[in-house]
């Protein structure tokens, strides 16, 4: 964990999942931080849905998202048209690089040198901070958790609680070293000093960058969910606001938002609602006294239109980024968010990241699961995550004739020996005579069976082959 923590995100090798997992498993602090946090989040979620017909609500959530995806291209055009009427400028980006360039160009046109940011996972996906820094523009995170992570030069370890891997002591030392705050274990004091430092930054920022939770096509409204107020500051105080979002975030009607909001906050943090639900439909009007004079929306594809092509993989795009799947994941809870080495960790990351980085890079992701099914059971929009994991595992070994690989980098884990073994296995089970012959031989030469069979015998003893096959024994009984 510590080795990756010191690296910036673009240096992390996603393929090195196993060494990182081993390190995290051996780190009692990481184990404790995540276990405590995830226990709390799970029980809060359960409490928040008390009295609700959760299954019906989840069905509605899934249907609302599905209906939006069914009309995605039309809705995106409607959204653009409405936003343009409202005075918002809309930009389209095929990939993360283009999205970064669009943000830079807006900054350059305004001669902007400092950017303040609200929490946005898409901007993490774009590695926007890093890019802007290279362009001589400073981007500062204003969400307290993101701010801590940025000071530590790390990446978020949870999509809702970015600094969940750190305890108070670590944060206190970090703030002391980087900002001169006194060493203290008082979260109130630490937060208050961050508030003061941040207020200066908000006042002086040239541009505010935020994410979007839902974009409503019928009214041209960008919705943001948050507790701290930094999102409102980011979108209100600087003279220019740039919202970045994935193209899948659009919904047709304002009404849809009520269902998704009810699901999102309860699933994420067990809150009935967050402190602020911020709906932005345009820049400051001429008679208004505050608010940004310019508002931009950057619609980012970055692999989403590829996921969109396939009926099964499409379900991935229903995601509303609540993080419930990671809160309930036994693997995530034990290895923590950084082990994955990806922007989105946990179950949703395992089904989303392979599309963004390819299955060659992300080959270990679909396998980092026990397929226990908890993620699928809590998903507010009923994404069948376990099914998608199985699908991606098939893709990673190139599937078969009925399920040929489609995802970028498919077949990365295919081994010709393994493929041959399975081919033989298939043949044997299709031909009874061959099956009897094969099992008979195995029984006869069982003494030659190797005692160690790779990973299987790491924690188990190898099963011993029986001296007689089942067929032989049945035959003897009948006699």
């Amino acid at each position: 964990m510590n080795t990756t923590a010191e690296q910036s995100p673009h240096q992390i090798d996603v393929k090195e999942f196993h060494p990182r997992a081993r390190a995290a498993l051996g780190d009692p602090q990481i184990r404790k931080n995540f276990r405590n946090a995830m226990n709390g989040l799970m029980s809060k979620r359960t409490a928040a849905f008390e009295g609700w017909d959760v299954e019906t609500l989840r069905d509605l959530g899934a249907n609302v998202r599905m209906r939006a995806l069914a009309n995605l291209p039309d809705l995106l055009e409607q959204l653009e048209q409405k936003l343009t009427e409202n005075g918002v400028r809309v930009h389209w980006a095929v990939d993360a690089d283009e999205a970064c360039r669009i943000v830079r160009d807006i900054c350059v046109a305004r001669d902007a040198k400092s950017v303040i940011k609200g929490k946005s996972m898409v901007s993490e996906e774009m590695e926007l901070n890093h890019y802007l820094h290279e362009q001589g523009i400073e981007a500062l995170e204003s969400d307290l958790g993101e701010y801590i992570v940025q000071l530590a030069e790390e990446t978020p370890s949870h999509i809702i609680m970015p600094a969940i891997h750190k305890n108070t002591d670590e944060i206190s030392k970090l703030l002391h070293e980087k900002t001169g705050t006194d060493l203290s274990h008082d979260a109130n004091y630490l937060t208050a000093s961050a508030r003061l430092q941040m207020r200066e930054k908000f006042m002086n920022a040239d541009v505010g960058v935020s994410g979007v939770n839902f974009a409503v096509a019928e009214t041209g409204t960008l919705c943001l969910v948050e507790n701290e107020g930094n999102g409102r500051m980011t979108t209100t105080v600087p003279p220019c606001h740039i919202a970045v979002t994935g193209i899948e975030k659009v919904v047709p009607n304002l009404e849809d938002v009520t269902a998704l909001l009810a699901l999102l906050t309860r699933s994420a943090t067990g809150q009935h609602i967050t402190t602020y639900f911020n709906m932005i439909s345009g820049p400051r009007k001429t008679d208004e006294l505050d608010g940004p004079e310019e508002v931009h929306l950057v619609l980012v594809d970055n692999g989403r239109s590829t996921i969109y092509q396939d009926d099964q993989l499409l379900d991935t795009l229903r995601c509303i980024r609540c993080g419930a799947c990671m809160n309930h994941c036994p693997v995530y809870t034990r290895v923590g968010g950084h082990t994955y080495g990806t922007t989105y960790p946990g179950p949703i990351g395992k089904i989303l990241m392979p599309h963004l980085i390819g299955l060659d890079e992300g080959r270990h992701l679909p396998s980092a699961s026990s397929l226990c099914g908890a993620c699928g059971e809590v998903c507010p929009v009923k994404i069948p995550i376990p099914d998608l994991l199985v699908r991606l595992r098939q893709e990673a070994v190139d599937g078969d004739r009925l399920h040929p690989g489609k995802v970028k980098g498919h077949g990365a884990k295919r081994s010709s020996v393994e493929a041959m073994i399975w081919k033989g296995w298939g043949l044997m089970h299709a031909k009874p005579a061959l099956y009897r012959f094969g099992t008979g031989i195995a029984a006869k030469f069982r003494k030659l069976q190797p005692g160690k069979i790779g990973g299987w015998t790491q924690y188990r003893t190898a099963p011993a082959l029986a001296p007689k096959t089942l067929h032989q024994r049945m035959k003897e009984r009948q006699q």
Partner: protein
Amino acid sequence: MSSKDTILQRLRNRSGGEITAPDCDFSVLRRPDWSTGEKLDLFQKMIESVHGEVHRTTESEWVGVLAGLLQSRGARTMLVSPVQKIGLALKEAANSRDDLPDLLLYDEAIEQWQEELFTTVDVGITSTRGAIAETGSLILWPSADEPRLMSLVPPFHVAVLYASELYATFHEAMQAQRWHESMPTNALLVSGPSKTADIEQTLVYGVHGPKELIVLVIE
């Protein structure tokens, strides 16, 4: 081809063919017809559970209640709208009573007085456009009369709510007020004071926005 066309073309030429849009039945969000009293009780319970403070009062007494609450907090300046009903009432009251903090009117563009707003104003006082019982949420539609930062920057936010404008759910409020026909530049649901749990899940109030949210309910 522009990026827009590239993206839209990929989406339109979907290899999986057309997707059937399912029906969406929102009845699961519906709540029984609660009376105003029931809605108010629930609203109070919910917003208090997230550290909001509720005081029930009347049209003739709310200014006095407010004065007491602000005095107990040692507030020296309060920011109000120069034209909105609540602001006008306080402007008038400030002439006749001396237990209110100094009155500050939000009557010029933020650029002219940003530093002052961020460092010296103690309280922002706003109206509301109703509230939601189920989640304990205030509905705010900031406007030219009542700008956005009033409810965000000062450490205390006082909101005046008419009990008659309580809705059971967000869904009901949105439908009743016909939001889909026209949205303001900024609309907000506010449920409690600003908070964070980013430092080892310890709950702290007032991280970027107000440390306290006080709701005066006029019955």
